[in-house]
């Protein structure tokens, strides 16, 4: 039998790496076990066609929490973040394009071309969102309070959050309360009249979720995502070398801090004895005992498949099964022989350096969602496109480009057929849609990679293909993430913890869950 390790972290995604780093810094000896040949989880760069490298899954960071970048000294470990000035360019079928720059003044000028009133409202919205999201951000950095018996520090945390909430003033304070449960379509309509602008901002409330813009609660998703990124439509946050460069730097930082990392090492089982986690069993059959096990995998995979569920109460198992995580996203990566020409941009490639939004109207987005409700992928999908080779030419051969496309909605559960038989149909629909906004793009495609929700589950371990490890929703955030009473990174199994996106705050590639988890786990282990 192998020697007993201090801590084992199952999964080397970005949150696992962040947790490993902070726990190593705190004096623990974490061992990270990653199933794939490289760390990074869903934040990876790979060559998908000879000479073309791409952020295979996530293509824009949350962005990362600045304290994580600082504490882990990611820049010293080789990370060069790229923040293009054009955050989002929204395309429309009438060949007009709207670019929302990071600079509010410039964004306002662009909006004024559509509506003077909206240009004015944009700064009102921007300011309100910035104030509100900063207060929520404060709450997100806290561990959710213990729901049954809040401790003194829980109360203190709630009190300070409550105080800053009050400081917002009545108007914005009520907005916090009112906005959360609203449909994002209503929220944007309260401010703007231009359909293209409405749809572009509303998209933030539906990205990665099984919600349409008319679904109540989609505003909450927008608010949560705005906590790390108050740009109304979300900024673009890339890395030199693709998103994988972020996790590569994190890996280096975690190692330097004292964590050990083994790739190509699949954990088959988390061993539990008398309600206590005692270590892991690898696919190879090797057993590694440990003082505590921390899982970067989603709560369902961790507790229903890595752990033998008989160690849990039937009631708890049922609740886990009820966590809503219907995947709705597919990914397509394209190798292009040249830069496509988009309608409405007059060849201005600088507008293409950020994220490109295709989904020109609220109704367009909602109809795309409708298809998925009945088990079909969208006939006219909502696409979020990036061309990272514009800001980082090293990703493609000279003069050529890579294009990364998020495709929504692609429901994990198809009504007719399975994803293997629908893969090409999905690809064709995406190319057809792209072709409407960038005529001729089909002829530029040298090769393409289609990642269906099924692939997300099978290859990247995202249960049901859900990129956030569970819906961001009013009943699944903060003290309810992953489950009410279990929002503090611990599980009913002693010495088994969670640190992935399925825990609070879990809002994308920010590292927030991993950082919070490390802090709480370290406290718990010292008690």
């Amino acid at each position, binding site marked *: 039998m192998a020697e007993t390790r201090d801590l084992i972290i199952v999964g080397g995604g970005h949150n696992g790496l962040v947790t490993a780093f902070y726990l190593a810094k705190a004096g623990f000896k974490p061992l990270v076990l990653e199933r794939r040949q490289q760390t990074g989880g869903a934040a990876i760069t790979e060559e998908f066609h000879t000479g073309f490298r791409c952020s295979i899954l996530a293509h824009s960071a949350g962005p990362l929490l600045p304290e994580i970048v600082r504490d882990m000294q990611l820049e010293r470990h080789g990370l060069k973040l790229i923040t293009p000035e054009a955050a989002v360019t929204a395309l429309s079928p009438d060949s007009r394009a709207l670019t929302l720059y990071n600079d509010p003044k410039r964004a306002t000028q662009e909006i004024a071309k559509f509506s003077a009133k909206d240009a004015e409202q944009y700064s009102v919205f921007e300011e309100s969102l910035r104030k509100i999201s900063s207060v929520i951000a404060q709450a997100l950095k806290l561990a959710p309070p213990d*729901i*049954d018996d809040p401790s003194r520090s829980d109360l203190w945390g709630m009190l300070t959050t409550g105080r800053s909430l*009050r400081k917002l003033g*009545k*108007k914005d*304070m*009520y907005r916090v*309360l*009112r*906005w*959360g*449960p*609203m*449909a994002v379509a*209503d929220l944007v309509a*309260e401010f703007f009249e231009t359909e293209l602008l409405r749809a572009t901002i509303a998209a933030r409330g539906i990205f990665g979720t099984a*919600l349409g813009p*008319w*679904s*109540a*609660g989609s505003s909450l998703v927008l608010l949560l995502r705005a906590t790390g990124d108050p740009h109304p439509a979300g900024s673009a946050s890339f890395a030199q070398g693709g998103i994988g460069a972020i996790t590569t730097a994190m890996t280096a930082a975690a190692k330097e801090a004292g964590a050990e990392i083994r790739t190509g090492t699949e954990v088959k089982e988390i061993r539990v004895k008398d309600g206590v986690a005692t270590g892991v069993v690898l696919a190879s059959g090797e057993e590694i005992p440990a003082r505590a096990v921390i899982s970067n995998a989603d709560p369902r995979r961790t507790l229903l498949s890595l752990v033998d569920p008989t160690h849990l109460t039937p*009631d708890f198992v*049922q*609740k886990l099964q*009820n966590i*809503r995580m219907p995947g709705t996203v597919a990914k397509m990566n394209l190798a292009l022989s040249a830069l496509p020409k988009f309608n409405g941009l007059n060849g201005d490639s600088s507008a293409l350096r950020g994220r490109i939004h295709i989904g020109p109207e609220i*109704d367009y987005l*909602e109809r795309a969602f*409708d298809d998925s*409700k*009945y088990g079909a992928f969208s006939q006219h999908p909502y696409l979020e496109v990036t061309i990272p080779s514009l800001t980082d030419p090293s990703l493609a051969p000279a003069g050529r480009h890579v294009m990364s496309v998020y495709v929504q909605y692609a429901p994990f559960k198809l009504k007719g057929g399975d994803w293997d038989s629908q893969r090409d149909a999905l690809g064709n629909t995406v190319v057809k849609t792209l072709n409407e906004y960038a005529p001729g793009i089909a002829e530029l495609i040298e090769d393409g990679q289609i990642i269906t929700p099924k692939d997300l589950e099978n290859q990247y371990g995202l249960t049901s293909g859900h990129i956030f490890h569970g819906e961001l*929703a*009013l*009943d699944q955030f903060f003290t*309810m993430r992953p*489950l*009410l*009473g279990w929002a503090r990174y611990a599980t009913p199994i002693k010495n088994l913890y969670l640190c992935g996106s399925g825990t609070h705050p879990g809002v994308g590639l920010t590292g927030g869950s991993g950082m919070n988890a490390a802090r709480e786990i370290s406290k718990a282990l010292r008690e």
Partner: protein
Amino acid sequence: MPSVQKYDVIVIGGGHNGLTNAAYLARAGKKVLVLERRHVLGGAAVTEEVFPGFKSSVCSYVVSLLRPEIIRDLDLPRHGLEILPLDGTFTPMPNGDYLWRVNDHGKTRREIARHSKLDAEAYEEFGKAMQAMCRFVKPILGMVPPDPATLNPKELMKLLFIGRRFQGMSLEDKYNQVQLMTMSAIDFLDQWFETDVLKATMSASGIIGTFLGVRSPGTAYVLLHHYMGEIDGAFRSWGFARGGTGAISNAIADAAREAGAEIRTKAPIARIIVKNNRAVGVALENGDEIYGDVISSSVDPRLTFLRFMEEKQLPGDFVEEVKRYKFRGSSGKVNIALDALPDFKCLPGPGAHLRGALSISPSVEYMERAYDDAKYGNFSRRPYVDMVIPSLTDPSVAPPGKHVMSCFVQYAPYKLRPGLNWDEQRDAFGNNVIDTIAEYAPNIKDIIINKQVLTPLDLEREFGLSEGNIFQGELSLEQLFFLRPVPGYAQFRTPVKNLYMCGSATHPGGGIMGAPGRLAALEILKDVGAVK
């Protein structure tokens, strides 16, 4: 020269909330005047003889939420209120089967077991869990919402009270409560049941009167209402008022009159008279001015503040909030005079199933597709229809051997897509409802003597419900409790001194509950003091 009169309180609108408000105030010794625009009292809780001999509950058609304290305080049975039971819900299915739930637990259990044994067991558990939730929610329905934005210790105590009650629940109940308040009806029901038609029919209560689908978050909460109904103390019963829904309003009106309130019909008001930021009276459309120390409006905020007042009399922020308050009516009504009873293919003959609610809600997908049509400005090609035939239980409402049938229809969006208008679509809408029913009860077309079709536009014009919303404003999470109708003004008071709100647009909202009218009366009395 117009006549000048003076009252302690003038109540605008003689709907059930306005009347309740008036009754409580009159009982406290106030000199109260109720002004109703129409020729008949009751607002949307009204019985009218639309066709000679047939008395229809024109709008609201069943009762379950009427607050027991109001029935008690106003002694409504003595004033003629009699609630008759409405037993069960019958859902015909396209495959020739049906789901028929009744108040008898054993029967319902066996019926559900016919569809799924697991569901039959879960149904019992579900009922128990819902009742635990009701016990938490009930006191909230009876309280004046706190204002979370103030530092007033009294308000904070109220918040603390809610917090403590929540803390006092078991983890299991907390879990259910949080889910109920935030989830979609279908997501919530999916956790308990597998039978599609059961989930579809149960979820329907979550969408009534809202512009939401059964899969929209926030619709689970209304499931509770079905377990909150208290008629003669029995949980979960729905009922009819003998003589139609208007009998409820009439009983309340009778109680108010007995306490000394004066009630005038055909007295439409033109504006609220405001002097120095104080409401001092109302001007009727005929030019009469009537003065009162307090003006209590039971009509919705759009009418109260944007029609009966001028924007400049109100703070700009407040006007902005009132303007964005969402109505979005989503339902219509078809009232039918019948020559005989409908005959359902799946259960032929005049059985007891016709005495309950008849629900056209065969599947979750059916419900969701009905919603999809409405999102894009169309009435549902195949709508959710909730029907009752009160004449089976209360023969007084129809000539012998004949019947009245009331059909609540959703979705019928107030705002149709560009190019369509309700006046032109009324017939198509009505016929579509009949066609829908005919798929399950084909004889319907042969037995209709007459029918009245009410579109959302008709509800607005006839009954003063802005955009045809039956609850005076959408019951969505962002418009409930301390956010209803607008943040900062959820305590029945308004920015104008002596002007109060007492209708369904205030907490706890719509349905024939009477709670807003009562709570508003108690708040008014706190400010001005009771006489006796």
